[in-house]
């Protein structure tokens, strides 16, 4: 399977340098790209930068609720970091445990 990334231009270049198979830099069409990718079955991992993830948050949440195994979506910080961004896996953890898990508590 492949690794795919949806990200800003700089991150895209960097990930390509590291050998990621396909990178997409959306120009306002992130929704279509996202739907295209999640409906494919040859994608194992999908990276998505935080600011793009934020703009399609509803779709992402929907995807996480479906409980589909692949692609595994990883939210990464892009060139511009989003302050206080909570990724969907962390939100899922919070829901499963009932409280936000503090590392000090472990």
């Amino acid at each position: 399977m492949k690794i795919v990334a949806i990200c800003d231009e700089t991150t895209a270049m960097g990930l390509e340098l590291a050998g990621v198979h396909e990178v997409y830099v959306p120009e306002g069409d992130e929704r279509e790209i996202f739907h295209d990718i999640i409906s494919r079955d040859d994608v194992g991992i999908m990276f998505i930068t935080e600011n793009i993830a934020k703009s399609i948050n509803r779709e992402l949440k929907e995807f996480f609720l479906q409980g589909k195994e692949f692609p595994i979506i990883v939210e990464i910080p892009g060139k511009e970091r989003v302050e206080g961004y909570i990724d969907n896996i962390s939100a899922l953890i919070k829901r499963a445990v009932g409280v936000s898990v503090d590392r000090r508590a472990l």
Partner: protein
Amino acid sequence: MSGEVIAGVKPTRMELLRIRKRLELAEKGHKLLEDKRDALVERFFRSIKERDKIKEEAREILGRAIEALIDAEMIMGTNRVKISSKLVEKIGEIEFHRENVMGVKVPRLNRDKLNLKSRPLYGFSDTCLRLDEAKKLFEKALEKLIDLAEIDGTVKALALEIEKTKRRVNVLENVLIPRLQATRKRIEMLLEEREREDFFRRKRIKAILERRNVS
């Protein structure tokens, strides 16, 4: 709603036996599910701890990698960086197999097919040192990100399973078991009442018969 008596159950001894059996089974299932939930949560916490560590590392390396790349962009110009970034070997096929963690299928990556140190195909004469640095850092970051993806998959699968188990435990604990208990109690009471009626009837008949014999 919880203490409701199950509708349509006739107060007979047969039904009582059946309800008792169901209650026993429900309690056994409840205990098993509780154990499963606790084991899953323990495993889940371990995964979360690992995930936080990897996530932190990945973010840190990625930040440095992007800085290096921006430097390279400034030295070489965005277009040449872009062209160079296309001239890189791909990391090869990623393949997952499934591992069983307490009945939950979690994805595990086959790392042997990965080619994380991909050879650059761009020329050395028209690129700069910072680009090579950026490439190295991004490779490192990608390695961490792949680890993160793997553990994210695990955490997700575990979280969904925990939620499902929790729901089942709650249904047993708050609905099914109280209902069965209420039904059992009601049947027992009705049967006792009938017995008392019977007992009294027999006494009464006996008294009547004795009176007749005497007279």
